[in-house]
């Protein structure tokens, strides 16, 4: 017996529905054949992972119903089996998968809702870091300040959608006053998902924070102050101050 081959055969049985090879290693009896016994493991693994995806994507699940969600997960799990022992890292490809999953295409916003839920999941599990003391920037020379660039907090994500996925998400929360039938979901939205002191927040940038999407994107692309000034002109100081006050920017660096 070669343990490495046995484990490869087992992985195929669990994630490729190909249990004929693995069955050769297994004893069957009157109650259950070798294939059926392997099927218990396929069912158990898929059950564990489907349950985990249901916790990470509760609104996506609610939108399609449990039965269809389980079916989507079944296909997804075979196509994208986990590769990390860190459970919280599983599901990153779910939104992309749903975009291509033909049976789910009638719900055009489903993939974007899943992306929003994944962003919330990631932000929740991100490291909590204190911001640096930005007053230290005052000690830099003007020349040095010109090359400063900023880092966004890791516990922050930018999501853009052609649908009001924020309202779809809020409408599915307990006690929400938002009714899905009252919402025009066919409007584009730019969202910032971030971890505040009192939980995960979903902030719509394109209404209350005009051009902050472009600003935060420029920061995430490591634009320095000179480049930011070129793009945002007189708004740069106020944008920067607001981002620092909100805790969206973690630190500053120089090239």
């Amino acid at each position, binding site marked *: *017996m070669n*343990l*490495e081959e*046995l*484990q*490869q055969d*087992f*992985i195929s049985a*669990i*994630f490729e529905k190909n249990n004929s090879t693995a069955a*050769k*290693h*297994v*004893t069957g009896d009157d*109650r*259950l054949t*070798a294939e*059926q*016994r*392997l099927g*218990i*493991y396929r069912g*158990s*693994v898929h059950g*564990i*992972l489907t*349950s*985990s995806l249901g916790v990470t994507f509760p609104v996506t699940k609610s939108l399609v119903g449990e039965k269809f969600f389980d079916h989507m997960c079944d296909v997804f799990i075979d196509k994208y*089996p*986990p*590769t*990390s*022992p*860190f*459970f*919280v890292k*599983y599901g990153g490809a779910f939104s992309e998968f749903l975009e291509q999953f033909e049976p789910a295409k009638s719900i055009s916003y489903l993939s974007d809702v899943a992306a929003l839920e994944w962003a919330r999941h990631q932000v*929740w*599990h*991100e*490291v*909590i*870091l*204190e911001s*640096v003391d930005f007053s*230290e920037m005052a000690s830099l020379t003007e020349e040095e300040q010109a090359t400063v660039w900023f880092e966004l907090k890791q516990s922050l994500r930018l999501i853009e959608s052609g649908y009001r996925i924020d309202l779809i998400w809020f409408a599915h929360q307990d006690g929400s006053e938002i009714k899905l039938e009252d919402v025009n979901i066919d409007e584009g939205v730019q969202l910032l998902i971030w971890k505040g002191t009192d939980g995960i927040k979903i902030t719509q940038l394109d209404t209350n924070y005009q051009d902050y999407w472009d600003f935060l994107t420029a920061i995430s692309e490591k634009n320095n102050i000179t480049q930011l000034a070129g793009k945002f002109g007189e708004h740069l100081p106020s944008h920067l101050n607001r981002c620092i006050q909100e805790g969206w920017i*973690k*630190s*500053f*660096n*120089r090239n």
Partner: protein
Amino acid sequence: MGNQNSEKTIQTNALPTIQGCGIGLRLEHFDEIKEQKPDIPWFEILSDNYLIEGTSQREYLYKFREDYPVTFHGVGLSIGSTDPLNMDFLKSLKKLKDEVQPAWISDHLCWTSAHGVVTHDLIPLPYTKSVITHIVDRIKQVQDYLGEQIVIENVSSYLQFKDSEMKEWDFINEVTRKSDCKLLLDVNNIYVSSQNHLFDADEYLYAMPQERIAEMHLAGYEDHGTHLLDTHSRPVTDPVWDLFTKAVEHFGDVPVLIEWDSDIPSLQRVMEEANKAKAIQQKVLPLCA
């Protein structure tokens, strides 16, 4: 400039004493435990869920540890895999251990990942001499890296391998003896496997190496007609309580823990199960003295 990240210092009892009947710490009970600080002697934490530094869960654990002794329990070691040990995982586990100071670290006598794919489930091994050699080598590597003995748990299984050369209990004895690790004896898993493979649960139980048993587990299973499934979603069943009673009679005062991982009820309900285990210990142990 740059990030601020400091070494964590927690006020804990450096070497926590684990005694009596504990329960598994679950997210669903976080708030209640934080507010009420119930009289529970110790908790087992699912260490895999706390390995990422700086997360909210990890911050909770630091505070939690100030009030309760803990043990670590994981599935991510994949001690029986033919893949190389995941050193990133081990490094994270060691860091968490150093910070939180659990009484011990346990994982399972099985494999959970292979060929780069992680099942997050407990897959059994063939019981052969070559597999013993493989497992013993890996347990030793882990123990050397962590700087302490680890505790290995017997798993439930739903199949047996044609190539197995010995009984599961002989396999466990050899692995624990040769690697000099401790044993987490899951009484429910013995019962589940005995029903799935039609062997005598008592024979398995009494063959366990008493001197290596650090902890016992109790949990509930689902009866699927053709087999029992170890789901940790139900109360402990009467046959498992009976087997546990025999275990207490035979092995004496060993810390025991109630696992409840899905369809999780109230904290009070889980504590009732722990109290039932405690009552059995209190009834049986004086008779063994």
